């Protein structure tokens, strides 16, 4: 492992002292979902080592003592590791935000004119356009796009959970226009418990998609004709795709009662 690792690292640092590798498997394997791995699970070896400079790139892995060549001088290695510990925090952290470009074309201008500040952001990321709208503006925007701009195909409705934010859920609608050959995303952010209006009256395709979002996240859609769970059993407790629902804590009771088995977890 150590041998494979080294070519990836800065060439200047042969790193004989500190058995190098072994870092990659451990910490990242269980990197938390939190988004900011900076706390305990230290940044990953290859890139960060490059950035922090060749001198320290010999990098001891955080938790692990030196591996095989350690026989040399464990104390020194340890010292090196300790000395390196402080600079580990500052290293040039990439900004933890999407590096988006502004989206400015006819369509976005028309929407801006029509909906004003109910749309807070027009962006492009990786050549994909998206806008962020107020929750109550979503259905009017989708309807407007369908009637005025030929966005006649609702590709997907889904959500992402950010438990640390106050507006916890980001609900995403993906729209496509056959005529324009264009795909856009509409995002909105809502709090836990806040209801969104259903887009089923505009796009019947949203029926099952919204049911799935409800099933997985517990987001309710007002005006949905048949808002029930779709993939999980009706009596299931909890919403599995929320970040606070771990695989280990799934509804054991239901499994025991209905399947007559103890979960293997």
């Amino acid at each position: 492992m150590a041998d494979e690792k080294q070519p990836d690292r800065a060439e200047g640092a042969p790193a004989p002292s500190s058995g190098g590798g072994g870092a990659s498997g451990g910490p990242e394997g269980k990197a938390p979902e939190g988004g900011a791995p900076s706390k305990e699970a230290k940044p990953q070896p290859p890139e960060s080592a490059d950035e922090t400079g060749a001198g320290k790139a010999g990098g001891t892995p955080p938790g692990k003592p030196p591996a095989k060549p350690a026989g040399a001088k464990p104390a020194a290695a340890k010292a090196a590791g300790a000395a390196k510990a402080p600079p580990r925090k500052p290293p040039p952290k990439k900004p933890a935000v999407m590096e988006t470009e502004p989206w400015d074309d006819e369509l976005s201008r028309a929407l801006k004119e029509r909906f004003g500040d109910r749309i807070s952001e027009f962006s492009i990321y990786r050549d994909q356009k998206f806008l962020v709208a107020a929750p109550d503006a979503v259905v009017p925007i989708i309807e407007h796009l369908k009637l005025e701009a030929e966005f006649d195909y609702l590709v997907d409705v889904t959500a992402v959970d950010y438990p640390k934010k106050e507006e916890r859920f980001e609900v995403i609608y993906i729209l496509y226009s056959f005529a324009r050959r264009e795909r856009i995303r509409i995002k909105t952010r809502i709090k836990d418990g806040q209801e969104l209006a259903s887009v089923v009256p505009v796009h019947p395709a949203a029926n099952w998609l919204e049911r799935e979002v409800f099933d997985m996240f517990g987001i309710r859609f007002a005006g949905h004709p048949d808002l029930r769970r779709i993939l999980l059993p009706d009596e299931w407790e909890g919403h599995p795709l929320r970040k606070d629902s771990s695989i280990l804590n799934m509804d054991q009771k239901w499994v025991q009662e209905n399947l007559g088995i103890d979960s293997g977890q």
Partner: protein
Amino acid sequence: MPETTFLDANELVLNMGPQHPSTHGVLRVVLKLDGEKILGAECVIGYLHRGVEKIGENRTYQMFAPYVDRMDYVAAVSNALGYCLAVEKLLGVEAPPRAQTVRVILTELNRIASHLLWLGTHALDIGAITPLFYVMREREDILNIYERYCGARLTTHAFRIGGLQYEVYEGMERDVKQFCKKFLPRVDEYEELLTENRIWKDRLVNVGILNAEDCKAYGVTGPMLRAAGVKWDIRKAHPYSGYEKYDFEIPTRENGDTYDRYIVRIQEMRQSVRIIEQAVEDIPEGPIMAKVGKVIKPPVGEAYVSIEAPKGELGYFIVSDGSTQPYRVRVRPPSFVNLQALDKMSRGSLVADIVAIIGTIDIVLGEVDR
């Protein structure tokens, strides 16, 4: 069931599945009947739910790749292609030309294999047993090519993020060319058995009609959309993996009934052969992996990438928080969305038709339920 508040003497609620041979897995359909006429059909799904999206959040990007093969397990290569393209999009890399060409060959073979399996089982549902044996024979050839290429036949895990794991094996071009040469006459054979067959036409023509308007409204894509006359194929509309280099057509039909969808899929197999023949003639030299590194950590961001899977638009929406694991993986499965139109398609038809209509949607429950 939408409105079952009262039943008059003629109305009957009939449960079909989940253990029913023509539901292609574990799909349960609750039918509301008036005599033999279907008044409504409600699908009950989720029997195969494994929480693929949740698993994705708990695996690294590479570790999750084998899981996607197990969604639409008869078109595992397509699933893998979509996933790899989505992660590559987030990373901002592109697979090298050689890898792209091999990907196209394997994916198109996969489309043929998927359509073949569909054809065999669909015909079996309708009562024609013979085609099943014919199509299995040809599908076997494709699976053999997969086996020689990567060691697996069904859930291949043939692609890696950034390219391919394996170089083309010696003689692969020969095998693929031989298959193409042999396959087209075989398609003629299927057509001889079915296309003008009186019973086949009686069972399919004007059954389960879904016109273009309804297709769009319900988000239905793939052969079902094309059978309704919409000439839309992601391989043409938004080419990926070098599809723009190949010369092929998008077969369409007008009626949007079950028979048209059969014709469209048959034609698509012929077009796939065309693509494969062009691709295999000219596999560029060069590396098969882009430089992605051993640890895959896309920058913070999100991307939606979709491909034309055999069943329709297969999309992946991935959110990265900059760590080695996806923050969220959303799969937009074509089967799931297409199945939604079952109620609309089956209203007014006869009980015997429901089997044809379920078959014509071409669902794989592993993908519907994920």
